[in-house]
């Protein structure tokens, strides 16, 4: 059974519990899973205090998320939480796909260098949450209350009253805003009577974590119909502490209770790992998967994020990773609204942007699920035909779908983006998340993304020095009501003007990734997405784009 020592977090009675009238809080977050924790930490970083409620007193039990994507790591880095994840996690970026007894192809998710974070790390969800809890504990702005279960939601005109059950009985608090991050079975959603619609995939998967010393490489290995597991699919992936994740597709008719029993599981694993493999079962569960979402994520003062808002099948590791992007998207908006710097309707852009993201994730995972578990003879024939062709024909490899692994959503039609008026080449565009690049900062090796944080920011690409008038204009942006901190990106051997932060694009990667011809200015949102960009700095245009990006 689990080798991980689950921490127990103490329930501490709050003074709120003995008041005669409910205490008033600016933000309450329901659920201290990955999403609620990330939201709380981000709020604290932006100077907003919150109460974070969780019905449990430990981290996620059992085996759930393992693959955390590059974008998640970038967000965590902004939150100051990436280091322990990187230290404990298993870095990987390549994988292999097998069909029956042979390899179909190998892939590499991050073929180009010059990124701080890998395509993925694998880390058990309990560690992921533990590191977030440990960081949250250092932030006085977070009032994290374990063993506090939400049992009542009463939406009032100017606040939301939450009824909370604790070991000492129930109490109420009032919150200006509620972030519902209470997972796929969200109590908030149920208490508010909201529909959660979508489809269930009629299949069952055995998820087993085994502890073993094995020689397999640190790659994602996926089998369609392997000889050791007739008719189904299989996945093998390494996690921290010599734990390996194994997924076996069981079919809809499998009996989940029976399949969980060690006497059923061990022979299946021996067939896969070889009769002499020595392993211990760390965790076993049997899942069915579904893709569902709420019609809207914002319901007045209650805003849903993560699995509470949308649920996907795990092929592609899009559940937790998209939830972290939800938090990243929501928190700066909520902070601006709370500080009176943006109108409430800025929060509607969370809906607009993250509904599109959820639909994209649902579409990807639905297609993966359809490929992995074909329904009917014809779809199975096509699936096997693709796999058969993929060994020799490159085009068919791109049709093989064993999960399209999570990448950041490009918020292409965002109401907050200002459309390009100038011509740009390359991957970036308004709504896209920033691309990282290696740079020199004070002659030390660093990363461009470190200049794209702490509120709105600007990147100004300069050649030889910065024109003094432009430099003054850029510096003045820092004094705006919503300040924009600009960094000049200059080629090797150049310096910038006084009063401007500067990084040196020694390898030319930043210039290439941003198509950063001299004079180019990027306005970046606090969540590191591109708000607007121009070939020439123009304060009036920046002001208009900033107003647009803040819902004005």
């Amino acid at each position: 059974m689990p080798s991980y020592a689950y921490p127990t977090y103490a329930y501490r009675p709050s003074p709120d519990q003995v008041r005669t009238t409910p205490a008033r809080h600016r933000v309450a977050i329901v659920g201290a899973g990955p999403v609620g924790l990330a939201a709380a930490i981000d709020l604290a970083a932006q100077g907003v205090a919150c109460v974070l409620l969780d019905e449990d007193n430990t981290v996620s039990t059992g085996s759930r998320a393992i693959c955390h994507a590059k974008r998640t790591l970038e967000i965590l880095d902004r939150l100051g939480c990436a280091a322990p994840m990187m230290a404990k996690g298993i870095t990987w970026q390549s994988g292999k796909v097998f069909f029956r007894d042979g390899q179909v192809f190998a892939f590499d998710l991050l073929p180009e260098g010059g990124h701080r974070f890998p395509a993925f790390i694998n880390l058990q969800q309990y560690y992921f949450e533990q590191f977030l809890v440990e960081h949250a504990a250092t932030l006085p702005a977070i009032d994290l209350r374990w063993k506090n279960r939400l049992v009542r939601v009463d939406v009032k005109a100017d606040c939301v009253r939450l009824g909370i059950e604790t070991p000492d009985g129930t109490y109420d608090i009032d919150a200006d805003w509620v972030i519902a991050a209470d997972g796929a079975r969200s109590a908030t959603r149920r208490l508010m009577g909201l529909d959660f619609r979508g489809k269930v995939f009629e299949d069952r998967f055995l998820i087993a974590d085994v502890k073993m010393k094995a020689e397999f490489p640190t790659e994602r290995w996926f089998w369609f119909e392997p000889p050791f597991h007739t008719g189904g699919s299989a996945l093998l992936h390494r996690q921290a502490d010599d734990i390996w994740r194994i997924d076996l597709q069981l079919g809809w008719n499998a009996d989940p209770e029976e399949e969980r029993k060690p006497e059923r599981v061990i022979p299946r694993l021996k067939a896969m790992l070889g009769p002499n493999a020595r392993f211990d079962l760390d965790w076993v569960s049997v899942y069915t998967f579904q893709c569902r979402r709420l019609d809207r994520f914002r319901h007045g003062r209650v805003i849903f994020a993560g699995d509470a808002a949308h649920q996907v099948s795990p092929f592609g590791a899009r559940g937790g990773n998209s939830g972290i992007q939800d938090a990243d998207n929501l928190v700066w908006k909520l902070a601006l609204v709370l500080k009176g710097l943006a109108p409430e309707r800025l929060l509607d852009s969370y809906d607009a942007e993250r509904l599109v993201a959820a639909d994209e994730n649902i579409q990807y995972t639905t297609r993966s699920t359809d490929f992995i578990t074909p329904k009917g003879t014809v779809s199975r024939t096509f699936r096997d035909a693709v796999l058969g062709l993929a060994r020799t024909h490159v085009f068919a490899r791109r049709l093989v779908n064993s999960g399209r692994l999570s990448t950041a959503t490009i918020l292409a039609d965002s109401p907050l983006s200002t459309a390009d008026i100038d011509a740009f080449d390359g991957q970036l565009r308004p709504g896209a998340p920033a691309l990282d690049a290696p740079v020199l900062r004070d002659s030390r090796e660093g990363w461009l993304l470190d200049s794209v944080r702490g509120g709105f920011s600007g990147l100004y690409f300069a050649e030889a020095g910065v024109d003094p008038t432009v430099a003054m204009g850029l510096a003045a942006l820092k004094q705006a009501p919503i300040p924009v901190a600009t960094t000049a990106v200059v080629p090797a051997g150049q310096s910038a003007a006084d009063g401007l932060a500067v990084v040196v694009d020694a390898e030319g990667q930043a210039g290439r990734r941003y198509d950063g011809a001299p004079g180019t200015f990027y306005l970046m949102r606090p969540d590191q997405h591109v708000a607007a960009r121009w070939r020439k700095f123009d304060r009036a245009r920046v002001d208009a784009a900033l107003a647009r990006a803040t819902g004005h």
Partner: protein
Amino acid sequence: MPSKLRTESGFERPDDFYDVLIEAHRGLTEVQSAMVNAKLILLLANHIGDLDVIREALAAAKAGV
């Protein structure tokens, strides 16, 4: 939308094509034939590489079925 799918005769010797198609399946079981057809569709669809054409062809193929 103007039609992109060419439906006028494209073969110089249509009978030769038909013969090649039927011959390819000679001696195959139904399951094997289904697999050959599926692979053939995938290869040709990729060769065409235009989803509009493929959508039109699918619609034409489904008409009356």
